[in-house]
């Protein structure tokens, strides 16, 4: 029963994040929301594993959490440089914000 409650909460939060991903004015709003959806997917997978008594879902969650990070950086790099193969340049890395 406790896992059902947590699953419903995570589902609600994920749908709210999807709303922001659709509305968000800038691409960064969408990325924040997408990141949140990714975290929610990992939690949902873990909870679903407990819900159904099949802990194999945790391995899938572990994969998703790594994919989530790579995906965020790929999209960030794409919007920063316009290409995924850009190596980045020196003055940009040393520039202090």
């Amino acid at each position, binding site marked *: 029963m*406790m*896992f059902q*409650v*947590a699953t*419903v*909460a*995570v589902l*609600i*939060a*994920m749908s*709210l*994040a999807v*709303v*922001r991903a659709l*509305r*968000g004015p*800038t691409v*960064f*709003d969408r*990325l*924040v*929301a997408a*990141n*949140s959806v990714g*975290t*929610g997917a*990992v*939690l949902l997978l*873990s*909870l679903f594993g*407990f819900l159904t008594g099949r*802990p194999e879902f*945790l*391995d899938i*969650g*572990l994969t998703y*959490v*790594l994919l*989530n*990070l790579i995906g*965020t*950086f790929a999209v*960030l790099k794409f*919007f*920063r440089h316009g290409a995924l193969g850009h190596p980045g340049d020196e003055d940009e890395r040393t520039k202090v*914000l």
Partner: protein
Amino acid sequence: MIEAAVDALSWIALVAGGLFYVVGAVGLNRMPDVFTRMHAVSVGDTLGAGLLVTGMLLQAGPTLVAAKLVLIILVLLFTGSVATHALARAALQDGVRPVVAGRDGTLVQRDAAEAVLPLSAIAPAEQTSPEAEKETGRSNP
């Protein structure tokens, strides 16, 4: 007896975690700009996820499942902060400026004239300092 106590703790952790996660998602929808939205959602991604995983850990007991859960929450915590930092940096470099409260309390976007200021100057500029106002040529009603 012990099982009931563990179950109760698990209930508390899972419900509180779900609550924090939903609160973070609500903040994601109600905050005014991308930086405050990041701030709101990080509550759900750290405290919410941490409590949810704690609740699951209590149910799992000392097994391989628990080890995987610990691994998941560790990776989540590290990648969450790194991704948020990269996102904020990319947003700043792209010219997205934080929305700040003007002197009359309304929310205003930092305009292009103030965008050239370093970030450290943004917070002091909000004080009532006539020099900062002269420099940027900003005049609030």
